């Protein structure tokens, strides 16, 4: 969920929205926010499945250190979504294993 109002940080107003494509479907994201934040706002918490056991992984450190949030972004695998900002039209996919390099953009 988004924290729209906060007793210390105040209200979030005048959000500028962009659209990202998550697993083929359009999803709303705040302009400039991290990909992971956009996904969390939509309660989407799985980022990837591990190569050997196909286990789900989601955010662990949130600051670009642990690599649990890696996804396929614009066809590029292993992108750390917690430190990569969204762009309008960006494609974001749950990564399977080590991911495949497609480089479609």
């Amino acid at each position, binding site marked *: 969920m988004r924290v729209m109002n906060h007793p210390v940080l105040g209200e979030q107003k005048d959000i500028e929205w962009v659209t990202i494509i998550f697993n083929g479907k359009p999803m709303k994201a705040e302009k400039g926010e991290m990909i992971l934040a956009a996904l969390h706002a939509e309660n989407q918490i799985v980022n990837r499945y591990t190569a050997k056991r196909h286990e789900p992984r989601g*955010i*662990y*450190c949130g600051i670009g250190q642990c690599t649990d949030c890696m996804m396929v972004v614009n066809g590029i695998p292993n*992108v750390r979504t917690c430190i990569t900002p969204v762009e309008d039209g960006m494609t974001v996919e749950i990564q399977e294993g080590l991911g495949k390099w497609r480089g479609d953009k």
Partner: protein
Amino acid sequence: MRQCEVLVIGGGPAGLSAAIEAAKAGAQVVVVETNREVGGQLVKQTHKFFGSSRHRAGTRGIDIAKILRKQCEDLHVELKVNSLVMGIYADNVVAIDEKKSLTEHNIERIQAKKIVISTGASENSIRFPGWTLPGVMGAGAIQTMCNYHRVIPGRKLLMIGSGSVGLIVCYQLMQAGAEIVGIVEALPHINGYAVHASKLTREGIPIYTGYTIKEARGKERVEQAVIAKVNPDWSTVPGSEIVLDTDIVAVGAGLKPLIGMAHMSGCEFVYDKALGGWAPCHNKNMESTHKGIYVAGDTTGLEEASTAIEEGTISGIAIAESLGYIPKDKAKTLKDEGWERLAGLRSGFKGEDRVKAKMKQLNRYDEVMKGGK
């Protein structure tokens, strides 16, 4: 190759404070920061800080971040953001990877007369069945998401660890509208500042002292957590299990200094539990055993943002002095004042252990520099 006088690695409270002091005296300073804005972990500290009211006590961390950044900007400190330091090489050459976009990076080398390593710390994790499930995350991670990115990846949270970080994060998650199902602490008592615990208990949040997490359950994400009482030998008491419905399990198991850069530079280290483990030792100028490389903040021992600010300040003054921007006597006065403030911050609850550990670092520095091993 580009040259600069002072290069600061890490734009958190320690690094920015070092930059401010050095720049104030006239030095040319570059701060290299991996995130897209400086401030370090201050950018998510929404609570008012402890400390002396002669300094910044009572001010929220988020506001201290703004103050430090403004000071840097006013002093024309170059804030090089989105830039990761890849390594420190011979003759104080620093290699930097600047992220321009998803696919474009700019690699640059800068040679600095003086380097400050202020890379902070990283969170410890603990392992238990289910710890890899989405929804199990660092206490700092959920704080970043909630207070900085302003999203919460769930509704209910169980905190593991009653250190000050765990307690503060629970309070802040509650402020943001999440429900806290409880705090689990393996020790028989609260581990952080008691006043932080009291803020939670009066809101009805249970603190399970003498308990540990046994398991996180769920298919695609955490749905339940099982906690159990611990015996004095840290085994769990059979039959004492409590099953809690929760979708976030936050792990507040302490932090450890991020020492990669210091290690790469060949600095000498000291181990002390009170400071989070191995950390580079230094002298009273905050200079490491590698001449010209200074260390400040959590990277040289886990403490708080307020102590990081003071250590950064001292290193900045010492650097300005050694570059000839501040006369020796004036520098001494300023540094002594800094050490006095540090002594104040290292008094009270758990302060003594940190004083001892810091003394160990200073002594180790002397030993190494005298040629002993």
